[in-house]
């Protein structure tokens, strides 16, 4: 599995998949889409960050979080607070009764900037907070839950409740957060107007760059022993625990990783869309993020990106022409993905397209194993019972630990 040089890796099957995605995002889409549509694709891609995080956390480690919108929102709000402060100079807000604070605070009779807004004058603090705040919250939640061995269904319901808490809090505390409208009217980033077409195109490419960074981090984690332990944990948690691993620590780590991805995605969302509001992060939004991941393939990092792109593109397309039909389509998607192809598009691809590819390019089986051992081991057949497939893996790992 180790390849000596990066150049060689790009010639492997997995490398080609990454190259293909890069070509699609960097070359094909910018060429065929006008700036408005490209901006929309950029928005979809910000959800891909969350979906990739969910692949790690749900697909690999088996921790279904229904509150990824919380982390997406925290990242997004951190960025929005910085941009809002930049847009609310005393000159720009001279007509307010208290110039120099964001307009919605003025409307809500606040006369001074709340303490937790103060640090967001600093750009470097904001950049740290975009990742730091979601990770901190994820760490606290993870520490509280996983060390007490709360998992599965209970964890999902509690994260959903946390998403509800955050949305109610944001909507209720209008003076501090902008309420249901969110933080709007964002204009510049360090003096650079983010509303022009050129800026939006640049932001799109930044977003693609960040996404690939996340993809490689996720791939790195997946291909190390760490990633195998996550998968093993999903299949047979007690066995991993009895083998001497601290299961809670691994779970906290992967939950924080997913939160960090979601936070970055949220910040990019704010920059690309130009505002942030509770409707993007609540319970409904959070659970839709799960379907991006599920449709793409809950075990495939790249599948998640395609899932996020496809569902969102379909959503835009449907709701433009048949707004009535979209909820039906979305509902059918949830049911269909779960019942018919639990491993999503990536699973379908693996079972139907890959054998075809093999025949086409006359690859023999040994070569295939050579190029993609990790992927192959990690992805069970779509219909197969999980535990049966994973068992041999764990056994093959037990000699590794001392």
């Amino acid at each position, binding site marked *: 599995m180790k390849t000596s040089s990066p150049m060689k890796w790009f010639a492997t099957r997995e490398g080609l998949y990454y190259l293909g995605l890069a070509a699609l995002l960097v070359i094909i889409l910018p060429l065929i889409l006008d700036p408005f549509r490209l901006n929309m694709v950029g928005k979809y891609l910000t959800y891909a960050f969350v979906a990739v995080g969910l692949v790690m956390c749900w697909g690999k480690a088996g921790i279904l979080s229904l509150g990824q919108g919380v982390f997406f929102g925290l990242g997004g709000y951190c960025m929005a607070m910085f941009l809002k402060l930049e847009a609310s100079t005393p000159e720009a807000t001279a007509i307010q009764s208290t110039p120099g604070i964001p307009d919605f605070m003025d409307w809500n009779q606040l006369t001074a900037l709340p303490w937790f807004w103060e640090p967001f004058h600093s750009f470097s603090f904001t950049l740290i907070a975009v990742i730091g705040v979601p990770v901190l919250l994820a760490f606290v939640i993870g520490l509280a839950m996983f060390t*007490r061995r709360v998992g599965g269904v*209970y964890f*999902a319901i*509690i994260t959903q409740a946390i998403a509800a808490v955050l949305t109610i809090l944001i909507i209720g505390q209008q003076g501090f957060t902008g309420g249901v409208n969110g933080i709007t009217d964002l204009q510049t980033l360090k003096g650079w107007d983010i509303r022009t077409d050129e800026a939006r195109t640049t932001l799109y490419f930044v977003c693609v760059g960040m996404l690939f960074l996340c993809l490689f981090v996720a791939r790195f984690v997946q291909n190390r022993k760490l990633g195998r332990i996550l998968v093993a944990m999903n299949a047979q948690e007690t066995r991993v625990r009895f083998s001497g691993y601290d299961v809670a620590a691994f779970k906290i780590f992967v939950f924080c990783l997913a939160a960090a991805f979601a936070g970055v995605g949220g910040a990019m969302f704010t920059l690309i869309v130009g505002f942030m509001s509770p409707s993007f992060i609540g319970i409904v939004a959070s659970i839709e993020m799960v379907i991006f991941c599920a449709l793409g393939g809950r075990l495939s990092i790249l599948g998640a990106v395609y899932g996020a792109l496809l569902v969102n593109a379909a959503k835009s397309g449907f709701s433009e022409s048949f707004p009535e039909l979209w*909820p039906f389509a979305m509902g059918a998607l949830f*049911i269909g993905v779960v019942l018919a192809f639990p491993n999503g598009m990536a699973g379908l691809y693996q079972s139907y397209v890959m054998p075809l590819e093999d025949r086409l390019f006359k690859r023999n089986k040994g070569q295939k194993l050579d190029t993609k051992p990790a992927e192959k081991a990690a992805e069970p057949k779509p219909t197969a019972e999980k535990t049966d497939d994973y068992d041999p893996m764990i056994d093959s790992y037990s000699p590794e630990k001392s």
Partner: protein
Amino acid sequence: MFDGYTSSELMSIFAMQGFAGLSLFSVFVLMALGLTIIFGQMGVINMAHGEFMILGAYTTYLTSGFFQSYLPGLFGGYFFVAMILAFFVCAALGALVEWLMIRHLYHRPLDTLLATWGLSLIMQQAYRSIFGAREVGVDLPEWMLGAFNVTDLVQLPINGLFVMIIALSIAVGLYLLMYRSGYGKKVRAVVQNRPMAEAVGINSAGIDRATFALGCGIAGVAGAAFTMIGSTGPSSGQAYIVDTFLVVVFGGAQSLIGTIVSAFGISQAQSTMEFFLSGSMAKVLTLLVVIGILMLRPEGLMALKVRR
């Protein structure tokens, strides 16, 4: 937050808010009872439970319309017909859903969550297409209007009281069904040891279907009762589903008593805090406390003692 109130004022505030919280309590109990038997006994997370409830509410709405147009003389009693109808409509749909979807997913509880969420989206949009996006309400029969005056501060509306009585009688009925009947014995046998239950001749697939249908039917009755105290829209079910799941989990998934106790605690906490804080802050605080307690006691308040 208690500044500026004398102790006697505080007492009457607590009493007043306590009675006000009772209607929230009945909604929680009605919704949570159906969920508890589905989630606690079968391990299925039914995110479409709220939509089954709304189906019951729409059934009641249609029934009341029917009685108003064709049987105005019997209007005072339409509610009992509606309740029975709502139960059977929802139970039938529940059995269908179980057969089409749920039975394939018994070993994957998290996937039941996603699939039923999809079902809830479809049902919601169906209501929106059929009944329109506006909320509908039913006309209450004469005898349900009005209120008892307990003290000069505390008033008990009759419809609220009626709903509470329904909630409690369903709870009692469910207890008898689950712990004092042959059917309940079979359900518990299947939950505890499926292969063994099958070996002694229990049709476990049939039990599963009946239990799911029963849970959905109770949701339908809940919806019928719900129309007595509020109006119904396509998305009203979703507004309660997260709270109700917390009620179920907080009470301990397999315990009926736990569900009632936790519904009481959560609704009272929320209602009391609402007086002192804003409604949204009261809800946030309540949820946070519940989440906090769940971290200390992951199995819920009244869980069976099992080895983890």
